[in-house]
């Protein structure tokens, strides 16, 4: 499989805190890579470093074999990297349709074509009935779908999703999981940060586990589940809490 994303020894410190410390991993075409770790492990910082919002202290990021280090976020996006946010960022004063049209326009098509494309994406995320609703009128789960539709409208080759199932009620989770699988079947490589262990183990081909900015393991889900450091840092806490 072709390597889509290559992260090499990426490091970033804020003051004295090493948010990311020599992180390396690769994502191949069509894979779903899950990223796990307790709060403060450096997951969102890693996303910011890859998408150009934060400049790394050292290390490199390659997308489709070319370095995207020090490129502006909009240029990185136009190369084919889409992103959703942990703290949702819909354009609240615009309708769902307008939100997705803005995404579709990024592919260089005209307004009419963008409208058609947007409707297709809104249908894909099962929100066609809500297309004329303002984003501020949508529920959290619907806003997550909006962000997915908007990111998908940019036709990304790599989609980075920050806690898609976070903050939504349990009934909404299976629908979002199905949606991620549907996206992946379209051939989109996915990087997803998740706290929901059932979800991440179910959908991921590989998992990158982080703790205090360091990579603990990057392997298949079943191996990650058995890793002692992961259990100590994360799964153990979850299991302990659950039991």
């Amino acid at each position, binding site marked *: 499989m072709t390597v889509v994303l290559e992260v090499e020894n990426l490091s970033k410190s804020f003051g004295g805190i090493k948010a990311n410390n020599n992180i390396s991993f690769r994502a191949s075409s069509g894979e779903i890579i899950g990223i796990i770790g307790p709060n403060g492990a450096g997951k969102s910082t890693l996303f910011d470093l890859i998408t150009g919002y934060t400049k790394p202290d050292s290390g490199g990021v390659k997308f489709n074999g070319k370095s995207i280090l020090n490129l502006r976020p909009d240029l990185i996006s136009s190369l084919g990297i889409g992103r959703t946010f942990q703290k949702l*960022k*819909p354009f609240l004063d615009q309708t769902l349709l307008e939100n997705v*049209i*803005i995404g579709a326009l*990024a592919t260089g098509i005209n307004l009419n074509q963008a409208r058609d494309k947007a409707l297709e994406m809104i249908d894909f995320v099962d929100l066609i009935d809500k297309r004329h609703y303002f984003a501020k009128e949508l529920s959290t789960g619907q806003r997550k779908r909006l962000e997915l539709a908007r*990111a998908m409208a940019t036709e990304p080759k790599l989609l980075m999703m920050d806690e898609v199932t976070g903050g939504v009620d349990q009934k909404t989770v299976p629908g979002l999981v199905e949606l991620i699988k549907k996206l992946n079947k379209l051939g989109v490589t996915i990087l997803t940060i998740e706290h929901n262990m059932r979800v991440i183990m179910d959908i991921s081909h590989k998992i990158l586990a982080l703790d205090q900015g360091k990579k603990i393991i990057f392997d298949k889900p079943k191996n990650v589940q058995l890793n002692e450091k992961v259990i100590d840092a994360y799964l153990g806490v979850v299991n302990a809490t659950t039991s």
Partner: protein
Amino acid sequence: MTIEIIIQAIISGLLMGFIYALIAAGLSLIFGLMGIVNFAHGEHLMLSMFSSFWLWTLLGLDPIISIPITMLILAISGILTHYLLIRYILKAKMIVQICATFGLSVFLRSLAQFLWTPDFRNVGNPLLEGRLEIAGIFIGQPQFYASLVCLLSFLLLYLFVNKSETGLALQATAQDRKAAETLGINSNKMFALGWALGLSCVSIAGTMMSNFFFIFPDVGVHFALFAFVAVALGGFGSIIGCLIAGIIIGLVESLGGLLIDPSYKLLYVFLIYLIVVIYRPQGLFGR
């Protein structure tokens, strides 16, 4: 006092209201896009009036003809303002932003006084002069056409922002810069465009006003104050709010001057403004 005089005052107020609205729209667009209040807005109006004056004096171009040139001059000035000053203070504290644009206003006004002296100037014998009489109501032609051009420009601005691809990108950047960038929108370019559009609006109003207003380095101060009131009254960042607020200001100024006392017409405007900001701080159409 006859009904004709009251109608005359209402029409005069409306005509000035459309001009105030366009000036305020420029200010509101810049604020709505990047959250920066341009305290040099009045000085940009002054620059457009001087541009119009010099194009008439040196090249014999009437203001109505020189509108595209003054628009271009002010649009370039807006882009330069963004790239040479604003982009360095985008993430700075508000006090830094205030000092920067206020400093720019002092600089531009002083520069105008240095280059052109504080003398009052005017465009003599413009194409638009005299008055129109409709059913016993007299309307100055320069004011009438200035309002018409401002209203048309306002509608074009509204359509551009709400119906064009670039307008959607502008709105997206205004609402969430980071989200817009993930969709391939270059926010820095959008900010520069915002300044170009904002100052183009003020240049149209300034050029048309150079037909019937004296031109001097301090001329923008009064209009900038009204623009700030219109933006706060209409709601920060709301373009439609600027139109309604511009009309309210024009009418209050004109009718207040007629019905109460013309010496206090500014007071009536600021009184309305105070009432609105006390009871509805986000303005009439603010978010």
